[in-house]
């Protein structure tokens, strides 16, 4: 295929039309992974044999499966999403060697659509982090600059797509974990509306915030993968019964008359000048295509990070109570025959969890403990209501809200690892979409002079992913950076 055609939609068309076999496509990606992933470490597990066998099955059924929307498309799956019989560790020692007995609903849907799962991608332990440095299996590197973080927690998912090791990944976003690494690796990352996609088979971090979505090179590909993932699921009572719209009718994106709001005040402080410059350039492209850009006020946005870092750890402390060494995963060896179940729980968890997970369990346990519950947890949930009503007011006047995805480009590995608060503050633009449940997308928004990617983020009304995809496609069509690819791994992988 021509350079640039190795997209979800390009591969599907080539396999369905008989121009390529699913096996050849799969082998191409496996070869690229073999050539580069020793350095990048985007994958925690490469499912070479299973993927090739599956690709052969797709080829054998090609005539019957010709209409399937992801026919023969290789997909990488974040390691917090269950894949039956295949490693699923959440980047944690506590789940080393764990192989779930069932597939997550999103994995079943990918397989029904004809996709081929090529591997599991590395992430911060239990998706807690913004750099993928908190994985028990070591950090993933940024394909644009190997000494820098790829973002997190879905750093492996973003790096895999950016380096051309998979045309699409599926990952999770609890406070920016799809959008922030997508931004820092220069790819498209979509967090759907809470409830748009089933969470059945996702290793839960914060159940009122977690959502599964795609990372891809193009907006059309994000739409194609979301179409497969979305929809009601009887196995997840929080999955919306709202039927998924037909997203294929949206593109090419027309933004004439679309109103885009910008929270100017929130951009005044602490945002890198090159990020602001790129943000203005992207808005100018959209204005040129006929969008109407105006200011909006989100007065409580400054409280989103502290609210998030009370609510998310509180939910995590409850969800992670299940890792106790009884039913699956690691169990500590006890040195005394007199030691009982409580000792086994505590020793197992202390050996199995890394520092960031312990920190958040501690923070959440404190926020929920007697005497502090009202002052921290309940109060934070009330401020959360004010953040949501800011957005509801803004959406009376605009169709989408734009802001940078991150205040800075990718930082160096090790730079923030000893200062958790500075790591948390980098989530300032992403956490409010999770607190409110609103859909949000990060789009490639240009490069710094040092060739580090910058993300352009759009947040939409509930269940209106369509508007985000339409605006995103319009930006992509005219973006001068749309064909930029990371150079660091290019020669090893044999070009894009």
């Amino acid at each position, binding site marked *: 295929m021509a350079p640039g055609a190795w997209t979800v939609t390009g591969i599907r068309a080539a396999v369905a039309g008989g121009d390529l076999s699913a096996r050849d496509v799969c082998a191409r990606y496996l070869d690229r992974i073999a050539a580069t992933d020793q350095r990048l470490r985007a994958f925690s597990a490469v499912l070479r044999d299973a993927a090739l066998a599956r690709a052969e099955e797709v080829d054998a059924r090609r005539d019957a499966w010709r209409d399937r929307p992801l026919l023969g498309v290789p997909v990488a799956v974040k390691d917090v999403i269950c894949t039956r019989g295949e490693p699923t560790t959440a980047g944690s020692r506590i789940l080393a060697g764990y192989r779930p*007995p*069932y597939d997550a609903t999103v994995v079943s849907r990918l397989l029904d659509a004809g996709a081929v799962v090529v591997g599991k991608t590395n992430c911060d332990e239990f998706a807690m982090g913004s750099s993928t440095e908190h994985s028990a299996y070591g950090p993933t590197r940024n394909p644009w600059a190997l000494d820098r973080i790829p973002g997190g927690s879905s750093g492996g998912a973003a790096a895999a797509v950016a380096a051309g090791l998979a045309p699409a990944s599926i990952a999770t976003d609890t406070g920016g974990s799809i959008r922030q690494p997508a931004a820092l690796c220069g790819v498209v990352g979509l967090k759907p509306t*809470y*409830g748009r996609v089933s969470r059945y088979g996702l290793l839960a971090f914060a159940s*009122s915030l977690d959502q599964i979505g795609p990372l891809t090179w193009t907006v059309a590909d994000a739409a194609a993968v979301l179409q497969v993932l979305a929809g*009601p699921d*009887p196995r997840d*009572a*929080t999955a*919306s*019964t709202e039927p998924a719209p037909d997203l294929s009718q949206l593109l090419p994106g027309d933004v004439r008359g679309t109103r885009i709001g910008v929270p100017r005040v929130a951009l005044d402080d602490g945002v890198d000048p090159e990020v602001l410059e790129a943000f203005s350039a992207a808005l100018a492209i959209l204005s040129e295509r006929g969008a109407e850009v105006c200011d909006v006020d989100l007065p*409580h946005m*400054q*409280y989103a990070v*502290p609210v998030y*870092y*009370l609510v998310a750890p509180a939910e995590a*402390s409850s969800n992670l*109570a299940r890792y106790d*060494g*009884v*039913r*699956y*995963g*690691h169990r500590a060896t*006890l040195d005394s025959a007199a*030691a*009982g*179940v*409580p000792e*086994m729980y*505590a020793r197992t*968890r*202390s050996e199995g*969890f890394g*520092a960031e997970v*312990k*920190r958040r*369990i*501690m*923070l959440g*346990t*404190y926020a929920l*403990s007697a005497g502090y519950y009202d*002052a*921290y947890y*309940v*109060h934070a*949930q*009330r*401020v*959360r*209501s*004010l953040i949501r009503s800011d957005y509801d007011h803004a959406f009376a006047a605009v169709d989408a809200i734009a802001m940078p995805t991150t205040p800075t480009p990718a930082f160096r590995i090790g730079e923030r690892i000893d200062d*958790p*608060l500075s790591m*948390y503050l980098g989530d300032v633009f992403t956490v409010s979409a999770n*607190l*409110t*449940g609103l859909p949000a997308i990060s789009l490639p928004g240009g490069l710094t002079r040092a060739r580090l990617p910058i993300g352009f983020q759009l947040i939409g009304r509930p269940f209106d992913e369509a508007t985000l995809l339409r605006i995103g496609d319009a930006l992509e069509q005219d973006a001068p950076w749309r064909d930029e690819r990371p150079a660091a791994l290019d020669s090893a992988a044999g070009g894009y």
Partner: protein
Amino acid sequence: MPTVLTAADVQRIAALAHLELSDAEVALFTTQLTQILEYAERLKEVDTSAVSATWHPGAGAPDLRPDTERPSLPREAALAGAPERGPDGLFRVPKVID
């Protein structure tokens, strides 16, 4: 509402969370959790006396499926990941009562 945590506070929280911390971890978390809670103090500026809490972003009560009998995970599959198994398809744990 004290914002400065002591080492004893950290030990108490760890016990609630079923974690055993080393002395170094206690010292580190005492400092770091204090920093994070001090940062969260800014939420006190916000008057929420007339605001209800958002526990969940979903719209109202979830749609519940009918409560009908259907196959569940086979017992062998559910036990396959167990660190230690007892006889007759059970999870085995250290002795709970003498």
